[in-house]
């Protein structure tokens, strides 16, 4: 369960950043009173154009960033007060997730398992199950630098899921990936729903959202423009296609 309540985020800008952003104020408001709820067993999608505030929202949920005001609760815990406990409940995956190229998949997974406090017998059990599921046994002991993009993404998936998180955060998880690798991610997101996990994923691609999500929030310039179920979004459409409707909602702001 994720609860985002009246979330605001401001960044301090340097003179260079002010010039680049074409603003005269030192503060840049990137999130403005953002509210939404993500339920277990459902996929919540945060849809918005580039620079809308999706990544900032997800980073605040994962406690990488702290909110300027407002609150985020993950599994009932306030993220600002229980950072470490919150992170133990979260799995975080992005499309550009990097891995340690000089290590092997086994070493990376063991490292993240240890950081998440997973004991060795439990680690071996979970690792074996995930390796079999993703067909990873053949390259588990090869250096990551020598693996293909698809293989690397499988390693990232195991890294995200090794501690069996209750909440999984996907930040544009298929960005820059080929179709086959992206399919693995889509399957993982569906698996998470079936395992009754709380899933939030950000995207700027309407077709991806249509394929996966149960609940939808459209964010633009840091403000939530739409927040309801995907079914209701489809039902109340004023245009012919989902993409057109998304553009209409964004432009209306």
């Amino acid at each position, binding site marked *: 369960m994720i609860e985002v309540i009246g979330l605001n985020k401001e*960044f*301090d800008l340097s003179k260079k950043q002010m010039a680049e952003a074409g603003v005269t104020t030192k503060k840049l408001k990137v999130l403005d009173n953002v509210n939404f709820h993500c339920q277990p067993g459902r996929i919540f999608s945060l849809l918005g154009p580039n620079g809308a505030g999706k990544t900032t929202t997800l*980073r605040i949920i*994962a*406690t*990488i*960033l*702290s909110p300027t005001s407002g609150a985020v609760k993950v599994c009932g815990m306030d993220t600002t007060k229980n*950072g*470490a*406990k919150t*992170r*133990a409940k*979260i799995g*975080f995956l*992005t499309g*550009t*997730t*990097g*891995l*340690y*190229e*000089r*290590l092997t998949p086994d*070493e990376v997974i063991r*490292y*993240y398992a*240890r*950081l*998440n*406090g997973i004991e060795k017998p439990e680690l071996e059990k979970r690792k074996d199950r995930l390796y079999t599921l993703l067909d990873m046994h053949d390259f588990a002991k090869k250096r990551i630098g020598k693996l293909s993009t698809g293989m690397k993404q499988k390693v990232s998936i195991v*890294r995200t899921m090794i501690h069996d998180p209750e909440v999984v*955060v996907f930040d544009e998880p298929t960005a820059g990936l080929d179709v086959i690798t992206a399919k693995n991610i889509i399957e993982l997101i569906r698996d998470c729903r079936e395992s009754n996990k709380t899933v939030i994923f950000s995207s700027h691609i309407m077709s991806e959202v249509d394929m996966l999500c149960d609940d939808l929030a459209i964010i633009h310039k840091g403000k939530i423009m739409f927040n309801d179920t995907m079914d209701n979004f489809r039902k109340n459409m004023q245009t012919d296609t989902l993409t057109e409707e998304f553009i209409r909602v964004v432009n209306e702001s």
Partner: protein
Amino acid sequence: MKNIVNIASKEFLDTLRDRRTLIMMIVVPILVFPLIFTLVTRLQTSILEKEQERPLLTGVINHDPGNKLIVFLEKRQDVSLIAVEDSGELERLVRRDSLQVGLVIEQDFSRNLEAMKSAGVKVYFSATKLTVKDRIDRILDVFSDQMLKERILAKDLEESFIHPVNIESVNVATPQEVLGKLAGGFLPYLFVIFCFMGAMYPAIDLFTGEKERKTLETLLTTPVSRFEILVGKMVVIVTTGIVSAMLAIFGLFIAFQFIAGMPEIITSVVAGMLTLTFVMLMLVMLLPLTIFFAGVMIPLTIYAKTFKEAQSILTPLTFLVIIPAIFGLIPGVELTVATALIPIVNISLATKEIVAGTIEMPLLLITIFSLVVYATLSVLFCVKWFGKETNILR
């Protein structure tokens, strides 16, 4: 603590698989001095041998075969004489390297010698040829001594006549003190640089590299605190810095001990220095110094967006480290309460005193204490800097 150990062990594994870090941390420090000393001593020996084998090609103006100096020089195997007409030509030939040295023997040389006056010889040489002047001076000194002996004999005098005061010098400094004061400053200069450079690559790789590879964001989503991440990584950076510095010292000892051609006085003093106390004292000073270095490097590597940017920021810092380290090499700069408070300068001067065996305990303690204070301040700054989200996700 468990998390710090986990992070440090992973970073050690990752760092030890990085060829660039391994070269900077192990290969360069351990090999650089044995290689430099081998090359220098071999080159020196071969130059000296060649010089001594070859007769000194000497041009002479006023080449009178009856002149005592000419007779003396012609008898010597290590001199080859060539008559030259005028001093302009002689200077030109020496400048062009056609002659190694030129002698202008004054017209009245033999007469003055007979009259027991000073007989003049002008020596033309090029200061760019380092050994030539020494060789001709030694040869002319032998001739001058011979003439002096003949005069003493002719006047029926004792040799003590020309030595009215017999000066006997007694050096109270031990060879260790002499070596320490003269060359002891060289040691800290070297290990400070290797310590800095050994820590530099892991610092860039562990922070900027992690940002560039986009692994930092995922690491920050684990239940580990930022403080634990910072300390875990810092342990690795500090260790590599210390290992580099210690290997550089070890390489230096190997160079002194096993390379032929080193003066025995140096090898015996150096062998005596490598004691457990010396190594422990070095470690006690190196540890806070390396933490201080890491504390300065880490914020910069966190700030940098790319490996290249971090390298271009940190490389000029090497000069800032070298400048205070050079203080140890300047004669007359001593370890005082004031210099013991300046980072790098203090370790440089303290090491010099330790090598010489003249270190004063209160000054050593002030040095260690000030290094610990600087290290603590730099770590506190690091913690603050790493905790700031705009620095991490810049």
